[in-house]
């Protein structure tokens, strides 16, 4: 009896103590949860601000001021025959001379005159200010007209309805990206050009049309309105292919060796520490290494995606190795034992059981590594990939830039009013590429995980 009363008292005292601590614990949990929600909200808000800014600036850049008008390929202006072909019995030298002459003739054709006449037909004032009218259409379109004539000489004499990109400054003016009240001295375009642009816009000759120039063209400095990402995109594509072809097999193989076969001793410890350190090395250092080794030693070309791909491979390798190793570590040892227990060799146990299970993890690691490489800029600056390249690379050995470098270059362009939009548009393209790569990673992981 006595002892039971005693324990009852003890019990209620304990309960009191527990209850008072419960309130404290509950508060602690609430505070923790509130902090977590606040952190997530802040992060989401920042992401939302980032995306709104980029989208609001970048999306309008996909629509450009475009002339939609009839262009008469006037035979008075375009006086040229079809491209010469070698005639039977003609010496190669004679043919080459004829070809050169034809090319000279072609270059002397004043396609500006063709455009001017087309505009003057719609807006007679253009004839009074030919200088001002010449700045309405971007210069790159002159070459587009030339290419049309070369492709089809029969076009001469005909009138064709064409879409021609307006000059970048016209685009800026019409979109209101420049203060219209600025004095003439501070305006990029002359008063007459501005006036004509407004009139043509009012007439519907200049329209704001979706333009494929940003996707199809390489970068340009003479015809800013037609500057595009195609060169940088191809450069990035070549580099990605190189990274996938090199970093994935080498990285996965090293990870498998280190994780499954290598004896655990001081050497492998040293290698492991070094791989972890490499993953933390600033990317610009890899650029220096690439310049020293691949360009100076191996004499690979400057500004070429092959060098960029090799540098990015070096940079991606530690990521792929570390991620693959942790995936392999996570495979339960019981699976290995089961395979060894029925008489599989070590290699068979790994290829038949461990790797299939590790595949989703390895794929995810790889794709995230490649996506990281795709967005890398700093090392590329040091191997000359920040040069202005006005052509689309045909091979990995041609000069090229990369998407993030193109963003960097456009960001620094003098015509800020035009390139602010272009830069954001390029960022949208890069982000879209990254997001699709990451979605692919998630899809692959889900696809292989749900199989069993």
């Amino acid at each position, binding site marked *: 009896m006595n002892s039971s009363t005693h324990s009852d008292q003890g019990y209620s005292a304990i309960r009191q103590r527990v209850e008072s601590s419960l309130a404290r614990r509950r508060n602690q949990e609430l505070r923790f949860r509130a902090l977590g929600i606040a952190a997530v909200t802040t992060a989401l808000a920042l992401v939302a601000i980032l995306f709104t800014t980029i989208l609001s600036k970048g999306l309008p850049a996909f629509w450009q001021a475009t002339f939609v008008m009839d262009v008469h390929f006037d035979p008075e202006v375009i006086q040229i025959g079809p491209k010469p072909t070698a005639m039977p019995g003609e010496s190669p030298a004679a043919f080459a001379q004829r070809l050169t002459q034809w090319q000279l003739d072609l270059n002397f054709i004043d396609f500006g005159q063709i455009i001017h006449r087309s505009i003057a037909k719609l807006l007679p004032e253009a004839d009074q200010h030919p200088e001002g009218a010449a700045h309405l259409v971007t210069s790159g379109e002159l070459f587009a007209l030339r290419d049309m004539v070369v492709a089809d000489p029969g076009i001469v004499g005909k009138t064709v309805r064409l879409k021609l990109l307006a000059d970048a400054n016209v685009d800026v003016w019409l979109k209101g990206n420049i203060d219209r009240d600025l004095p003439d001295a501070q305006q990029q375009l002359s008063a007459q050009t501005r006036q004509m642009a407004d009139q043509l816009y009012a007439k519907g000759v200049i329209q704001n049309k979706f333009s494929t120039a940003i996707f199809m063209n390489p970068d340009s400095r003479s015809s800013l309105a037609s500057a595009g990402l195609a060169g940088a995109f191809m450069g990035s594509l070549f580099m990605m292919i190189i990274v996938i072809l090199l970093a994935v097999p080498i990285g996965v193989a090293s990870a498998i060796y280190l994780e499954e076969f290598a004896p655990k001793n001081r050497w492998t410890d040293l290698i492991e520490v070094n791989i972890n350190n490499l993953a933390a090395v600033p990317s610009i250092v890899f650029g220096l290494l690439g310049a020293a080794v691949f360009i100076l030693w191996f004499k690979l070309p400057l500004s070429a995606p092959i060098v960029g791909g090799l540098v990015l491979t070096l940079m991606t390798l530690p990521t792929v190795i570390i991620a693959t190793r942790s995936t392999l570590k996570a495979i339960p040892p*019981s699976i290995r*034992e089961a395979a*060894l*227990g*029925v008489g599989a060799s*070590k290699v068979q146990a790994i290829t*038949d059981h461990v790797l299939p299970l590790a595949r989703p993890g390895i794929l995810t690691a790889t794709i995230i590594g490649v996506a990281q490489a795709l967005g890398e800029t700093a090392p590329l600056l040091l191997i000359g990939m920040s040069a202005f390249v006005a052509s689309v690379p045909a091979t990995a050995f041609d000069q090229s830039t990369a998407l993030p470098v193109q963003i960097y270059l456009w960001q620094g362009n003098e015509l800020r009013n035009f390139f602010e939009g272009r830069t954001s548009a390029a960022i949208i393209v890069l982000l879209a590429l990254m997001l699709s790569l990451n979605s692919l990673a998630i899809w692959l992981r889900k696809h292989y995980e749900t199989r069993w």
Partner: protein
Amino acid sequence: MQDAKVTMGKMHAALADNPCTGAAPSGAVKLSARDVRVFYGNNEALHGVSMDVMANEVIAFIGPSGCGKTTFLRCFNRMNDTVEGARVTGRITLDGYDIHDRAIDVVMLRAQVGMVFQKPNPFPKSIFENVAYGPRLHGLAKSKAELEQIVESSLRRAGLWDEVKDRLDTPGTGLSGGQQQRLCIARAIAVSPDVILMDEPCSALDPIATSKIEELIHELKQNYTIIIVTHNMQQAARVSDRTAFFHLGDLIELGATPQIFTNPRQQRTEDYVTGRYG
């Protein structure tokens, strides 16, 4: 005893007086261990164990946790080779051949000495693939029909056929724990081993699944030699012909199962089987 190079004849003579060999039932010696020591790094986990295992007998290893019974079991199919830093000395023979001999391929050995693990560990593949993996690996089946034949007979022997015959292509991991363990047994016998090592095969199973596995062990005895490690002394008493008691890395006593449980010769064995420790 200490010298692994002593001839077999001398050994048997020496073993006659050794309490550790016990009264072996008649029949051929299937596995023989002499002065087997296992080191993990510098730590000796097994201090020179000798034992003969006869063909078609069930021998149970009992003892408290950490006594070395699993370590010893894993010596018989050289599973300790896969453990980083583990080293095995001494001599183990299977049908008279040294399993550590250079001429013996560990893959061949494991095909002859199958193993069932503590936790059911089917491959995350179909039931069929689980059983077919071993035979396919060793090229035991010449045709698909033959492979199907092996899979069916293995599943039948493991007492699982009737439960899974309609869903052979469903994942083995989708079965219940007891079924999974019987699938693992089927996987082990699919490569036609002589010996099956079982490392606490029922420790993760409920009593009904356990009794099924125990029945299965009785049946498998006809064709296989079975070594089973167990923590459950009733199980050892139910399924085994002989029982070996291990303690702190030593084989304390080996004898006919009824004798070990009713009339142990060693004080430590008696203390353990009567529940005084362990």
